[in-house]
């Protein structure tokens, strides 16, 4: 029985790359997101290239009321192990979120509240199945709030903390939970930005994430270079940190 990976936010660059990685290893896919036109294309590609099952599913992180039924549907579709890759999130500019409380609230709702809601709905199903892996995309931005994106960072810090308790709870049922503190990736979201340090392609990220997902749990920096970098940044005294243009 092939394992199934449920991709939440499946149209994102990283989720696309991870789905290909999973399909290349023979896993079936549930592709969940809002852009159905895109998910249909992605599902066809995975089926044809890798001969696996791939199904597009409508999912909106902010439509909390629909989460329970969505999880029921996924539970029914996954014949083997059910694994989850949580990749959705938005990143409007900090200044925009400062100006418009609606933008700020929407980001918190998608990045944190939505994640907490769908993970909570998934928990009993994963516990009942007594196995599987949950991989969630955190961010190095959650390690220390910087002027450029502290609201975004705060949503990720909240997610990191949530995942710690979630991992402890699910470990009792044999479910592994892995929080990936992602560095910078070369995605549609970062395309307009100037070249950033330690940037990796979604393919490189996905290949490393797959290897970690096969055995790891807890949290990990990806790429690993971010562990020393963030260790230094976290330890900087505030009077120095506040003067830096990070």
């Amino acid at each position: 029985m092939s394992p199934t990976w449920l991709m939440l936010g499946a149209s994102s660059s990283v989720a696309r790359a991870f789905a290909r990685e999973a399909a290349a290893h023979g896993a079936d896919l549930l592709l969940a997101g809002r852009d159905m036109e895109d998910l249909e294309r992605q599902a066809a590609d995975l089926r044809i290239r890798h001969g696996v099952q791939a199904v597009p599913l409508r999912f909106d992180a902010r439509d909390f009321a629909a989460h329970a039924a969505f999880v029921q549907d996924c539970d029914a579709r996954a014949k083997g192990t059910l694994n989850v890759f949580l990749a959705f999130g938005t990143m409007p500019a900090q200044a925009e979120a400062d100006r418009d409380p609606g933008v700020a609230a929407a980001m918190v709702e998608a990045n944190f509240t939505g994640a907490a809601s769908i993970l909570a709905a998934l928990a009993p199903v994963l516990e009942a199945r007594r196995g599987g892996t949950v991989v969630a995309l955190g961010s190095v931005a959650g390690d220390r709030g910087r002027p450029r994106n502290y609201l975004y960072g705060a949503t990720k810090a909240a997610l990191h903390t949530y995942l710690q308790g979630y991992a402890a709870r699910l470990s009792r049922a044999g479910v592994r939970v892995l929080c990936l503190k992602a560095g910078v990736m070369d995605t549609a979201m970062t395309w307009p930005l100037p070249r950033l340090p330690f940037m990796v392609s979604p393919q490189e990220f996905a290949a490393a994430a797959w290897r970690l997902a096969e055995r790891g749990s807890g949290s990990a920096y990806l790429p690993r270079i971010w562990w020393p970098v963030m260790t230094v940044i976290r330890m900087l005294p505030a009077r120095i940190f506040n003067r830096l243009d990070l």
Partner: protein
Amino acid sequence: MQDMATIEPKSTTASRGGVGWKRIELTSWGRTSRTPCLAARPERMRELRAALDVPEGRRLLVHGAGRSYGDVCLNGGEAVVLTGRLDRILDFDPAAATVTVEPGVTFADLLDTFLPRGLLPPVSPGTAFVTMGGAVANDVHGKNQHHLGCFGDHVLWLDLLLPDGEMRRVSEAEDPDLFRATIGGIGLTGIITAICLRLMPVPSNALVVRRRRMTDLDAFLAGFEEAAGASWSVGWIDALAQGAALGRGILETAEPSPQGIAPRPERARRFPFDAPGWMLNRASVRAFNAAYWRRVPAGGEERLLPYRKFLYPLDAMHGWNRMYGRAGFRQFQCVVPQAGGAAALRRLLEAVSASGDASFLAVLKSMGRAGRGLLSFAMPGYTLALDVPARPGSAALFAALERITLEAGGRIYLAKDSTLSAAGFAAMYPDAGRFQKIRAQVDPQHRLSSDMSRRLGLG
């Protein structure tokens, strides 16, 4: 919709309707010119449609893998859409052996997916890194042109996103004019969003390749005549050989092999640096070409080779274009009609050999039939391709090659070209006027444009 540590946009950035733009510098495979432009890199159709709304009213060009040699894929000072991430295989019909793909899917993708199922793209250019969108826009050909024609001959239909946002499916049955203008249409008729292609069954993943030495040009052309029934045939010419040895080289022919080869992961190497100019001189290139000639035993040889190795010999060396150093190189490829072809080839080879511009192996092939596109390159005859390092003075050589080609009734391949004159283009491509009329119906303001289209007087 994903996640990363973020640094806010600094200055160059703009996000319009869900697609981001930034300033980049683009170059093509020949690396002779590096031009700044605004670029979007859509990952889905929604973003691609948004990219039609180009900032600052700039003109737009689609850019695939950037494996063409000249300026057909460049749009200096204007804008480009990169299709590399639109790389999904959309449909596969095993009974009909047809596949539908997004424009950024490459030949490498198709071989990875379909060769294990006994199917191959019927026509392949010399590198597997080329995208399907680029293959259509340049109506590329391969070592079996004499047998199976050009890439466009195997395309059943295209989905075309027109500059005004309309999506149109074009084929021989629906809108044949626009279909024929788009095949080989160097990206000027619209953005190709889907390509339906017929694949060809092959008995295994390998072919039987025969290599024979050809002592001079006449022997070579006779060799092609003799090999007219071969599935694949290609000639490698020592472009520096002169006098009696002019046109000597190796003729390769190949047939599908019923017996395959155990697939081995190919380890690609990367050319490690921009070679300094002095490395490439007459003596070093002469030595290389001579070694290539002697590699094949006098009595010929026969070997079983995987398709990849035969179709894409240079793909094992990533970045081989750096061999020509920082200044880059230009490629010349023309086709001359069969009648008078031998004399024209002799004049071309003499011009190259006399110029002193060191050229590695030239490629000679016979062509069987014309392409179906209005600006398709192919015509029955012989095609000759060679690299020339970009040096002061090579302009005179290219002008001479253009003149010889024109006098022979031939034409120059736009996918390789960076020097053809507007007058030369008009003379070589008699359907250019019809092409412009069809283009005017879908893009009257020439919102799609390129360095090449402006150079050739197409606007």
